[in-house]
Structure formats: structure tokens, C-alpha cells
């Protein structure tokens, strides 16, 4: 006779495994691409087989050869070398603008989300209005004011991204700030600043990083667009957008001049998107980032 109350411990009801958004494949491939790109950009001078500025009248629009796998451009320059440097510039603009936007946007969002109420309203109203503006249009307006060139491009693009980061961090901070352990920290006498930095920030930064990856991809596209119309990076400095503008004139003779930079952009953006997808599962459980 079994004793009263003896019970076989039963397993909890089986649950189907929750399918996580993104998953490791995205993370690995995306991170792989991004890391490769950054390495290429940083080591451009080492990797480039030829001097990127060496013009050669005889090789103008020359077809690809074994020592020049991507051929020559309209000034006889080696396309591969030029491409590597162009990557450096474009990636630099992209990461620079994202970095600046993070530095400015995250504190704004943190303060707005943590203090809430009228501070939140005060900070977020202009932010929301900026968000309402079409992004590319805003960057053109800023270019009109700031001027052209690499630095101007970084500032103009960063200005578009600041509201995005502010909003993402603010939403995350709002959620986290209302959690019980923040009250507990306050009860222990911790200052607002230390609570913000030690408790709220580490949790709010996750979605911001996912967003950063997405925006880096967008930044590359924006840089390409504004440089393409001549309002961004100025030639002879190569960037992916500048190469697109240059190559456009020789579509019938040397189509690879146009195809290569375009594919380069697509691959870069792809890498950032996949990275963001992969990171989202780990860093952004509430799905705060767009």
C-alpha cells in the first residue's frame, strides 16, 4: 500500500519550444560579414594590391585581368584597390554617424524614460517630430546647411539617427524604470544617476545596439545616395556612392564599374541586417527596436 500523499513528481506540462526570432544562423553570418567588412576597411592599405590613385592613360576602362581582378576605371585606376578604400570611407561614415548618434541619443532617451512625465514630454516632442520627417529629405536639408564632404555627411546622417536611438532607449528605459528592483535600489538610497547608469542603462542598451546595426546598414545606403548626387563625399576621395556616380557614365563599355559598388553596398547592408536579426533574440526580448 502506498502511503497517503506519496506522489510521483510530475514534469511540468510540455511546452513547444518557443521559436526565437533570428537565431544563431543570422547572428553568425551577419557578424561574419560585418567583421570581414571592418577588417577590409581597416586594412585597406595593406590589402590593396595597387595604389588607388595611380592613373594610367593606357588602361582606361580596361577589362579585368588576373592582376587586376576588377578591372580599371575611367582614369585607369585599379578598381579593386579603389573599392577597398571606398569601403573604408563608406564604412567610416556609417559607423561614425551611428557612433555619434548613440552618444547623443542614448542619454536623451535614458533621461526621458527614467524621469518620465514632463521631462519625457519635453524631450520627446521634438524627437517625435524629427522622426516624422522623411529621413533622406532631412539629410538633404542638413547638407544644404552644413555643406558637403565626409564630415558633413557624418553629421547629417547622425542627426537623423539621434531621434531613433532616443526613442528606442526611452521605451526600454520606461519599461525597466518601472520594475521593482529600481524601487528597491532607490529605497537603498542610491542616487538617480547611479540607478540610471547601473540598472537602467545596461538593460536599455540592448535594443539600442540592435537598432545600431540596422541603422549602420541604412547609413551606408544614405551615404551612397547623397554621394551619388554629388552632395556627400567629394571625389577624388572614393566612397561607394562616388564610385556609383562615376561608373554610371560607362555602363555600356564597362558595366562592372557600376555593378561592383552596388553589390558591395548590398552585401554590407545585408550583413548589418542579419547581424541585427541575430542580436535581436538576445538583446531585445521585448521587441523594442523596429
Amino acid at each position: 500500500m502506498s502511503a497517503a500523499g506519496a506522489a510521483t513528481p510530475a514534469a511540468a506540462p510540455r511546452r513547444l519550444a518557443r521559436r526565437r526570432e533570428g537565431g544563431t544562423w543570422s547572428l553568425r553570418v551577419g557578424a561574419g560579414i560585418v567583421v570581414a567588412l571592418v577588417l577590409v576597411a581597416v586594412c585597406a592599405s595593406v590589402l590593396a594590391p595597387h595604389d588607388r590613385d595611380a592613373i594610367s592613360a593606357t588602361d582606361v576602362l580596361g577589362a579585368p585581368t588576373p592582376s587586376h581582378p576588377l578591372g580599371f576605371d575611367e582614369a585607369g585606376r585599379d578598381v579593386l584597390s579603389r573599392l577597398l578604400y571606398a569601403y573604408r570611407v563608406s564604412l567610416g561614415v556609417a559607423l561614425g554617424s551611428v557612433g555619434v548618434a548613440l552618444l547623443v541619443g542614448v542619454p536623451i532617451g535614458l533621461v526621458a524614460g527614467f524621469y518620465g512625465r514632463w521631462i519625457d514630454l519635453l524631450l520627446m516632442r521634438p524627437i517625435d517630430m524629427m522622426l516624422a520627417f522623411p529621413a533622406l529629405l532631412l539629410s538633404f536639408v542638413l547638407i544644404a546647411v552644413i555643406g558637403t564632404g565626409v564630415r558633413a555627411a557624418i553629421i547629417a546622417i547622425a542627426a537623423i539617427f539621434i531621434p531613433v536611438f532616443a526613442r528606442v532607449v526611452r521605451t526600454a528605459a520606461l519599461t525597466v524604470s518601472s520594475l521593482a528592483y529600481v524601487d528597491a535600489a532607490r529605497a537603498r538610497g542610491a542616487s538617480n544617476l547611479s540607478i540610471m547608469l547601473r540598472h537602467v542603462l545596461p538593460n536599455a542598451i540592448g535594443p539600442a545596439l540592435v537598432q545600431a546595426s540596422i541603422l549602420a546598414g541604412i547609413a551606408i545606403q544614405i551615404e551612397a545616395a547623397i554621394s551619388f548626387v554629388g552632395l556627400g563625399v567629394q571625389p577624388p576621395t572614393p566612397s561607394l556612392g562616388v564610385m556609383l556616380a562615376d561608373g554610371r557614365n560607362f555602363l555600356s563599355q564597362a558595366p562592372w564599374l557600376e555593378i561592383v559598388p552596388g553589390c558591395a553596398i548590398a552585401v554590407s547592408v545585408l550583413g548589418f541586417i542579419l547581424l541585427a536579426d541575430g542580436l535581436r533574440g538576445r538583446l531585445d526580448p521585448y521587441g523594442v527596436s523596429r
Partner: protein
Amino acid sequence: MRIPWLFLLRRLVLTIPVLGAMSVVVFLVLHLVPGDPARTMLGLRATPELVEEVRASMRLDESLPSQYLHWIEGVVQGDLGRDHLAGQPVGEIIGGALPVTFELAFLSMLVALGVGLPAGILAARRPGRVRRATEGFVILGTSIPDFWLGIMLITLFSTALALLPPSGYVPFADDPIGNLRYFVMPALALGLGQAAFIARTTRAAVEDVLRAPFVLFLRAKGVPEPVILWRHALRNAAPQIVTVVGILTGVLLGGAIVIETIFGLPGLGRVLITAIEQRNYTVVQGAVLVIAATFITVNLVTDVLVAWLDPRVADGGAA
């Protein structure tokens, strides 16, 4: 379903301060330019008399608020200032260019919806390979720059196949077929990228709805699956899709700027770029104002549409 008049009124009233604030921002930003705008604008043609003339016409010697008020006064009456380099009223330049940009935006959105909606619905109904294919399409659409796609299309259809003209424009009223031929590639280039986004949003929204408890109840009622999909699921998914369309319009308007340059379409985008290059500030001001106002109006329309589709929003609740 009833038209949400009260909601419409409320939103309309709210739009006015937004437009006002936006105009202030546009005005301020352009007046932050260092140096003398008139001199910068005239460039090499700057003679002291001309500079004086332009400065007077732009009222640059008055205080900023006063300048702003004059400008706004004019805007409300339809006067957007003068293009001092071309000697024309800005309103005329913009008025001529606006229909082109509108047509481009409209046709592109048509492409985006025409491709994206069916793709999204298909992916929601048949998970598995179709769904993965849509995901791949979405990623491609987001990665490939739309203007590069446009250039590739030109290479294919104009240079290689000589099927479509690579650039140019003729008004619709003059030659409808010709007009549309000029817009095929630009609309495709702009629209396909957006289609990817719409496809993903549609798929996610429809999938979410099909998992909702009320759908189970509909099945328990004996409602046939196609009716559940087309009458109920789409209606519930529509607010999300409409909202995304509103956001995409902003992206479209931005992308149109570059596309117009590539395809030689004389729209607002081209006007804007040229004006920026020339430092033609009055024109830039006017063009940006019009584009932004368009965008705000489109968002007003989509908001009202969402309220009409989802009565909970009309009553002031969250969807």
C-alpha cells in the same frame, strides 16, 4: 462601418501645430547657414547692387521672427518667395514639378502594394518554403539600394534591350502611353524595395490575426476559410499595413529625390538637388516645405483610414 468624423476633426486640428512647427524648423535650419545667404547664392554673379536687391527681397535685414512671419504669410496665400537665380516665383517652379513627383510616388506605391500584398498574404497562408522565399525577398529588397536597382534596370531595358527610354518625361495629358513608359522603370526601382517591406508587414500581421481566438470562434461558427481570410483577417491586419504605407511614403519621397535624378524626371527631387547645389535657399525652403507638408497629409489620411478600419482606435483606445 461608420466614418469617424470626430476622430478626423481631432486629427485635423492636431495637424495644424505640426505643420506650423515643421515650417519653423525648415525656416530656422536654412537660416543657420553661415555667411550672407544672398552673396553665397549669387556666387560669381554677386555685384553689390544685386546683393542689395536680393537681400531686400529676402528681407534679410529684418529680425528672424519677422522674416519668418512674412514668409508664412506668403505661404498661406500661395506665395513661396522668389527664385532669384531663375527669376521665377518659387511657387511656379514647385507647381510644375509637383505632379511629376506625385505620379512617381503614386505609381511606386502601386507597385509596392501590388507585389507586396499578395506576397505577404501568400506567405501567411502557406508557411514553409514560400515563407522562406518571402523572407529572402524581403532581405534583398531592404539591402539593394533603390537607385542602383534603377541603374541596373536602365542597363537591362534601355541599353541592352532598347525597350524603354532611359530618361525623359512627357506630361500625361499630352501622351498617356509615352508618359507611362517613362515611369515604368523608376516606379519599379522605387516600388520593389518597398514591396519587400509591405510583404513582411502583411505576412506578420495576417499570421498574427489568424492565431487570434476570435478566428477560432469564426471557424466554430462554420465560416468558410476564404471568408475568414478576406473578410476578417485582412480587415484586422489592415491597420498595421496602412500604417506601414504611411511610413513608407516618407521613404518613397526621399528615394524619389535620387530616382528623379537618374531618370531625368523633372520632379521636386531634381528641383531640390539643383537648388542645394546652387545654394538657392528660397527654392530649397519652398521645396522642403511642400514635401514635408505632403508627407504630413499622407499620414493624416492613413491615421483616419486606420480609425475607420478599427473602431477601437476611433473611440480613442489603443488598437
